[in-house]
């Protein structure tokens, strides 16, 4: 798998919009995915970032300066993976409370606990790697890489006559 991009942000709510922006723009430029799949991934990443930030606890505003969330994007020929990692206390993803059914009036008492179910539904595959040292949420979407233009060459040779020589050649320069 090829590492595409790494983004590190402070564990603070105001930065999640940037994480979404980065992920959706990298994905739309790299993968041949329909818009709604990109929206799905964007939401899943946002949920994972929210949990990562909340993992640092309620005192964040005071002492959260050094606490960070790291977003890693990788891909290969068949899939793209986004990994959201924090250094919070960790949790057991297999031992989460469940909600009453939506038809139960009690359902209204639960404003939270929707993030992980959403992630599980929105991406093709998700893996939670969690320990007391931190959590990593690895989300995978399958789909083809975008047919990129053949790698463009540029000319790092600096000052030169350029590609518009008088010969009228219509191929790219010497780069």
């Amino acid at each position: 798998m090829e590492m595409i991009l790494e983004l590190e942000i402070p564990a603070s709510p105001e930065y999640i919009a940037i994480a979404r922006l980065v992920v959706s723009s990298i994905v739309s430029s790299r993968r041949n995915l329909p818009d709604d799949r990109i929206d799905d991934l964007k939401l899943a990443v946002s949920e994972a970032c929210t949990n990562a930030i909340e993992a640092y606890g309620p005192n964040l505003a005071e002492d959260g300066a050094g606490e960070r969330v790291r977003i890693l994007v990788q891909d290969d020929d068949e899939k793209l993976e986004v990994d959201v990692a924090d250094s919070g206390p960790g949790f057991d993803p297999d031992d989460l409370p469940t909600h009453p059914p939506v038809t139960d009036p009690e359902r209204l008492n639960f404003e939270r606990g929707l993030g992980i179910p959403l992630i599980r539904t929105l991406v093709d595959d998700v893996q939670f790697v969690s320990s007391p040292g931190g959590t990593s949420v690895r989300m995978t979407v399958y789909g083809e890489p975008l047919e990129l233009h053949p790698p463009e060459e540029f000319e790092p040779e600096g000052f030169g006559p350029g590609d518009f020589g008088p010969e009228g050649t219509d191929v790219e320069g010497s780069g």
Partner: protein
Amino acid sequence: MDLGLAVDDSHPPYTVLAVKGEVDVYTAPRLREKLVELVSQGKHQIIVDLEGVDFLDSTGLGVLVGGLKRLRSHDGDLGLVCTQQRILKVFEITGLTKVFAIHDSVEAAAAR
């Protein structure tokens, strides 16, 4: 990245709260504050218009669930206006389409 929150009282007995922008853990507290404020002003029939919302996550859902609960406890209600597929999808996945009345337009929501 700020949340737009516009209150419109021109459909009595309903108060329409039009939300604009991205609702996430950063902006959702402002939505909640605004709902709390409306309820404390005695506005118990609220229509939240989500047509201007570009993004809504579980934090936003939680605020809407909390708002609905609060209004019900005052014999009020919270209806939604939403036609955008990507926003509707979040309600569908979480089963909340069964909890909220979701309308196609403010007019439809106010004609109940």
